């Protein structure tokens, strides 16, 4: 057989299940064995579903099938093992957000994506580690555990969806949900050699997903390849009346378009913009080399690549940190020790309870962002910081609009360097923020973007190619990613664990 079950792409696994060549029990057993083998080294799961319950659930599906009941073509993820980032509500399971504040919280309800996942008959394997409340770029701010990069366990998996990325890279799940507010799906995907896809803001419901920065937060996926991501997007996209920021559009239909399309015909004449600012001095020579190789592959297939300017690039990160911290400071005010989560002991009055609860329950990075946000929203600083950043957000949006008037997609590296070692950046906030330098712009403008594997550094660490598209341009983004993957084999490499 060669390739183990856990190494197969979602769509290959799905076909084997749909054709009856595999049972759900076999698939779940194979993934459970894989988790048992590698999890002590990877540390992706905050909570793994109970083994007995998983196997019983698989058996129920198999028995129903053997009786000829239930049309599995109506259940597009039938029997496929899925991981959820721990900021997404799954009824009855933990939802810690990797914070002491919610260490013992169990969600009493399902997020909309979880409801749809259950309807699609995917198997929920468990909840995955992350940076505390998604604030961080290495999963090191998790208050609960360490997640390691499956390619080299001395290195971070990236973040904030580090558990999701590591679980997919290590073959512990067939795909994983993540959230991306400034690169939290794409950056860990780049660091762990998997595909990380963030759709247009509002494409997928945020109902039941813990809010970090509400005008930036986007639900997306970490997968083995771009075609998997297209298939999953079609299932989870679409309007949700429970989310006022959900876009009033029908679900996408990208998978069928891509599946039957000849990648060469698609790439011929495609107009690709590469901003000089994405390839500057801050980009490590090895990352730059891999990305230039990727450009060459696309050019060989007939795409037109032109270097352009992105005038406000240097201001994206400062604007991003002001705006997301401001939104976070407001969102985090709900953690007061009254309704759920941690409450400090031995407090006499309510103000002491609020302060002690928050000070004991929240970690350093979260506090720092709450303070920066409160600062930039406070009287005397509001105009100079918060409103200034909102205006720069407009200018970045306009930079993109100008580019997309002439080009189909914008390309560059996902991150300036490959993964870094544990502890290397934790005490230097600006150095840590630098790893999101190239990803925050898509969230400032709400645009769809993807990171796809583009080879390795000499130390054997993965490098990611980033593709950004216009508003609602998921088909362009996934189309270029899929075409690139039919011409390359980087995404087929697997770590040795």
């Amino acid at each position, binding site marked *: 057989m060669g390739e183990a079950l856990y190494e197969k792409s979602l769509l290959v696994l799905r076909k084997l299940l749909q054709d009856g060549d595999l049972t759900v029990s076999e698939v779940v057993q194979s993934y459970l064995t894989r988790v048992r083998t590698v999890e002590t080294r990877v540390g992706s799961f905050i909570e793994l579903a109970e083994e007995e319950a998983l196997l019983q659930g698989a058996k129920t599906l198999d028995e129903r099938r053997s009786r000829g009941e239930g049309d599995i073509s109506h259940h597009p993820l039938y029997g496929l093992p899925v991981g959820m980032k721990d900021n997404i509500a799954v009824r009855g399971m933990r939802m810690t957000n990797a914070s002491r504040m919610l260490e013992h919280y169990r969600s009493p309800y399902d997020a909309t994506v979880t409801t749809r996942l259950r309807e699609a008959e995917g198997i929920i394997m468990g909840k995955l580690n992350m940076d505390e409340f998604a604030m961080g770029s290495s999963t090191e701010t998790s208050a609960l555990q360490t997640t390691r990069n499956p390619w080299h366990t001395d290195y971070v998996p990236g973040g904030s969806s580090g558990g999701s990325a590591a679980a997919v890279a290590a073959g512990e799940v067939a795909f994983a949900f993540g959230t991306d507010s400034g690169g939290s799906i794409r950056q860990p995907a780049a660091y762990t050699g998997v595909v990380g896809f963030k759709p247009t803001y509002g494409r997928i419901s945020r109902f039941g997903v813990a809010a970090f920065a509400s005008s930036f937060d986007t639900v997306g996926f970490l997968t083995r390849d771009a075609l998997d991501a297209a298939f999953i997007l079609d299932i989870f996209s679409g309007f949700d009346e429970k989310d*006022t920021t959900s876009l009033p559009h029908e679900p996408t239909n990208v998978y069928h378009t891509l599946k039957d399309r000849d990648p060469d015909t698609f790439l011929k004449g495609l107009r690709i913009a590469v901003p000089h600012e994405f390839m500057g001095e801050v980009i490590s020579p090895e990352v730059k080399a891999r990305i230039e190789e990727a450009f060459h592959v696309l050019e060989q297939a007939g795409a037109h690549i032109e270097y352009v300017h992105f005038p406000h690039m240097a201001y994206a990160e400062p604007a991003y940190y002001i705006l997301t911290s401001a939104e976070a400071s407001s969102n985090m005010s709900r953690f007061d020790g009254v309704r*759920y*989560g941690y409450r400090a002991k031995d407090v006499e009055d309510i103000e002491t309870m609020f302060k002690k609860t928050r*000070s004991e329950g929240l970690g350093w990075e979260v506090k720092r962002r709450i*303070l920066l946000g409160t600062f930039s929203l406070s009287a005397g600083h509001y105009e100079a910081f918060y409103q200034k950043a909102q205006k*720069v957000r407009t200018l970045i949006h306009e930079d993109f609009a100008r580019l997309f008037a002439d080009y189909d997609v914008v390309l560059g590296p996902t991150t300036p360097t490959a993964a870094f070692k544990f502890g290397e950046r934790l005490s230097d906030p600006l150095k840590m923020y630098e790893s999101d330098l190239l990803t925050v712009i898509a969230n400032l403008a709400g645009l769809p973007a993807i990171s796809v594997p583009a080879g390795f550094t000499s130390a054997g660490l993965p490098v990611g190619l980033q593709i950004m598209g216009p508003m609602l341009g998921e088909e362009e983004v996934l189309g270029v990613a899929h075409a690139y993957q039919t011409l390359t084999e980087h995404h087929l490499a697997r770590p040795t664990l």
Partner: protein
Amino acid sequence: MQVTRDTVKEIADYAMLTLNEQELEHMVRDMQEIVSFVEKLNEVPTDGVEPMIHPVKLMIVMHDDTVQRTEDLDAVLGQAPDRSGSYFQVPQVLGES
């Protein structure tokens, strides 16, 4: 701008956070570094630029005025650190204890 101990203390108070002496010193340093970094925005001319509040046009969703059963009261209250019947219980808010 200079980030002072007093500024950070005041902001922490607004945000219902308490920092001990050591944390306060550390936070002043971190905040100073971040504020100096974000002040880079002052280089950008923004006269006449509209602030962008949200990446997509927001739409107000109107629901039918019907009663829907959503969460189970006990499941929700069961998450509270302290409760009394169907109420959340907290330390005394007003008056002398």
